[in-house]
């Protein structure tokens, strides 16, 4: 589309015709432009998101196995769902996910909020250090998981070494030990994503108009009261947004943990997504895995609804 030629034609047309007619002559109608602009996006999302989604729902009611394409596909109703929701193993994976989810959120909120409050004191060079703190969350989770396996080496790893310089606990087998592995993934996730919580807390802190503190000053409120009655209510929507988003991300956590522990030892760090991958791409129980996927979908979709509601509230 050559802009220059079109422009001159349009200019000429605009000059020559009365306004109403000009509107019609100027190429496409608003409606046509709207559809022209939006339809490629919709088509691509339909093809690569919606269609597969519906297919998954269909497969979840069958006994399809992707590694045996010739086999007859039988409709088995809700049996996959019954099997999943009656399985003590799957329940265990959900609990492993819950352990990961709850502890990462608790630690990240405490550390992230603390850091945000400190940074908000506004010392010199705080901008630079904020950037430094943000670096881990921009990195590839899978690669982070890979290099933490090196840091976590029980004999020679630096993690165990540093801990031992403070407390004499002996070689820490963070990845190999049943009691430590769930914490190993919590630590890495906290290292990576505390900056995210910190960031949203900072945004919340900056949204507080200074006159509130000045008014509190006049009322002789102490620091704790100011925090409780002014700071906390104002950052709570931001904090909730951060926790919801990270909650969704950690509920479906896959890449970092699969590289770090790949679900082991035993199934102590077998999170929902990791088990789903095993069922779908190692055991090839496609129908069953699809039902599992639908359960995760619906849960994430529900959380996403709440998230978008919270997001719109914060943005307005």
């Amino acid at each position, binding site marked *: 589309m050559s802009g220059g030629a079109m422009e001159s034609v349009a200019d000429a047309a605009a000059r020559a015709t009365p306004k109403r007619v000009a509107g019609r002559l100027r190429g496409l109608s608003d409606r046509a432009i709207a559809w022209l602009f939006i339809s490629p996006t919709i088509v691509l999302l339909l093809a690569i998101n919606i269609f597969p989604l519906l297919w998954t729902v269909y497969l979840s009611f069958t006994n399809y196995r992707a590694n045996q394409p010739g086999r007859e596909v039988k409709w088995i109703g809700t049996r996959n769902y019954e099997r999943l*929701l009656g399985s003590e193993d799957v329940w265990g994976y959900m*609990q492993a996910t819950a352990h990961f989810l709850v502890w990462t959120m608790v630690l990240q909120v405490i550390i992230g909020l603390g850091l945000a409050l400190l940074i908000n004191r506004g010392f010199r060079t705080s901008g630079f250090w904020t950037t430094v703190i943000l670096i881990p969350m921009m990195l590839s989770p899978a690669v982070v998981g890979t290099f933490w396996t090196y840091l976590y080496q029980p004999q020679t790893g630096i993690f165990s070494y540093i801990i031992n310089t403070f407390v004499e606990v002996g070689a820490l087998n963070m990845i190999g030990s049943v009691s430590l592995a769930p914490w190993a993934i919590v630590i890495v996730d906290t290292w990576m994503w505390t900056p995210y919580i910190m960031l949203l807390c900072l945004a919340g802190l900056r949204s507080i108009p200074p006159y509130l503190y000045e008014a509190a000053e006049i009322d002789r409120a102490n620091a704790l009261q100011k925090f409780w009655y002014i700071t906390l209510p104002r950052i709570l929507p931001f904090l909730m947004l951060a926790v919801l988003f990270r909650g969704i991300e950690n509920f479906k956590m896959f890449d970092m943990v699969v590289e770090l522990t790949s679900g082991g030892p035993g199934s102590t760090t077998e999170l929902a997504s990791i088990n789903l991958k095993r069922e779908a791409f190692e055991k090839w129980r496609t129908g069953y895995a699809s039902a599992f996927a639908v359960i995760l979908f619906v*849960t994430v979709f529900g959380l996403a*609804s*709440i998230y978008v509601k919270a997001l719109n509230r914060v943005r307005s």
Partner: protein
Amino acid sequence: MSAPGTGTLQKTKGRGLARWFRRGPWENVASVLIALGIFMLMQPFSEWLYGWSFSVILTGTLGFVIVSHFPE
């Protein structure tokens, strides 16, 4: 300040049934249902709760989709 306030109050009262189909409170109900379902899915206490968790989440999620189309 008070005059327009009472005005809107009367208006909502007047609409009768429409009062029951407001978005805000129903969205909260659906949100609570979703949260409850997720707790049931991941709690370590009762297998019975686990078994019913997905039904609760599904109800909450579908409910949310529906009630988010109610008027404000």
